[in-house]
């Protein structure tokens, strides 16, 4: 790079030689400013999504770059939301990518005072064992009046109003097949 180039990048020089004499506009621009682009413009993909908060069901566009979500904003195509989002919807990027997300399994043993680490596979296996046992311990073929009930009261589940239909379907299907009936969600609350 020659001195001429360097000089040409000096805003004072541009002031003297260009139209922006007072140095308040074009002459004052930095190289970084000239390079400025919205991060959405460099996204590899725009994934169509739906806001996870309330039940209005606003459309969201999820911008992904290098395997990371870099921006989430309203989907203008949605006839429900027309691209708009409320403060919660607007905070979805932080919800999904913020530091508050836990990404590791934690385990508290009975009477334990602190969390411990556990790998996911072990945790799933332990949970499966516990479900089998609790189910069996709480099993009823008949109730106290002798009516056939074929069920277990040994375990219960609460949750699902923020989950997908497919997830609720599998939860209901599995737990019902296990004979559990205390399957509930936020809709009751």
């Amino acid at each position, binding site marked *: 790079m020659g001195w001429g180039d360097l000089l040409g990048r*000096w*805003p*004072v020089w541009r*002031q003297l030689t260009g139209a922006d004499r*007072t*140095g*308040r506009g074009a*002459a*004052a621009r930095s190289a970084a400013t000239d390079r400025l682009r919205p991060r959405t413009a460099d996204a590899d993909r725009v994934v169509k999504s739906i806001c996870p908060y309330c039940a209005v069901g606003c459309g969201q566009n999820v911008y992904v770059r290098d395997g990371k979500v870099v921006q989430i904003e309203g989907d203008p195509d949605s006839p429900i939301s027309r691209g708009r989002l409320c403060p919660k919807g607007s905070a979805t990027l932080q919800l999904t990518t913020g530091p508050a997300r836990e990404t590791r399994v934690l385990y508290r043993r009975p009477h334990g005072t602190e969390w411990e680490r556990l790998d996911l596979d072990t945790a799933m296996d332990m949970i499966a064992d516990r479900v089998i046992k609790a189910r069996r311990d709480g099993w009823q073929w008949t109730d106290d009046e002798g009516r056939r009930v074929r069920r277990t009261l040994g375990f219960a589940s609460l949750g699902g109003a923020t989950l997908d239909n497919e997830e609720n379907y599998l939860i209901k299907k599995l737990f019902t097949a296990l004979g559990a009936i205390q399957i509930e969600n936020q809709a009751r609350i």
Partner: protein
Amino acid sequence: MSPRRRREAGGERPTVPAAEFASYYGRPVLKPPVWRSLDIAGYFFLGGLAGASSALAAGASWTGRPVLARNAQVAAVGAVGLSTAALVHDLGRPARFGNMLRVAKPTSPMSVGSWLLAAYGPLAGAAALSTLTGRLPRLGRAAGTAAAVLGPAVAAYTAVLIADTAVPAWHEAHRELPFLFAGSAAAAAGGLGLLTVPPAESGPARLLSLAGAATELTAATLIRRRLGLVARPYRAGRGGRLLRAAEGLTLAATAAAAAAPRRRLPSALAGVALLTGSALTRFGVFHAGVDSARDPVYTVRPQRERLRARRRAERPASAPGG
């Protein structure tokens, strides 16, 4: 009415009944300056001292007062050096000090000041260096002359720098502040002369300080008279207290300097008082400005009155035809 409504900002209450004054939970409309007072008011003082000293030095040099000239030159270069350091210290990103010369903006007193300092500092330095080393005397003299021409600008531009803000107490005083600052600078430079130069050569310093003090006191009086509500921070609060102290010192110093022109100790004491008074003036002005920015009444009420006056003036004009 809930307790928080109409709660006004802390500090002094305006004299006008509060009922007609609305604000947003008493919060300031403006953002008060984030400048640190020691850095920036200090910079104003030192810049003024330097600039006026350069002028005095040149005059002394031309009129054959080598000690005064030398001391003033040294004071100028020391003050400008310190003031530049204060300025850099106050930056949020000191490493980017160089960006001050990225553009040259007549609309920005700070840009103008930066270029001024960039020119003045080396000149003042060259002048002092030449005097101290005795080398390149002609160049030194030319530099000193140039510094003398730029010096007063360095002393006065800082008034524009603060007046060119939305801070009510500063902006509304934009006519007087340059005189206040120039006068204060003169008083300080004179004071330094009185302090450091034997009576034999300190005559110009005394005269300059007297002229400066008179200008400063006049400008301050004018500000308080003319600014109405917005003058209040110059009277009350921290700014007011500092300014009162400054004026007291300046008056005392003037009296001392005038009464005993040939005696070293009173002169020196007068010099100290003048320097201190000058510094306190800048700190006072600084704080008066900050206080006026913090209380929304100084922003809202004058604007509201201006609007009312304009409406009154407009109404008859637009009346014909309904």
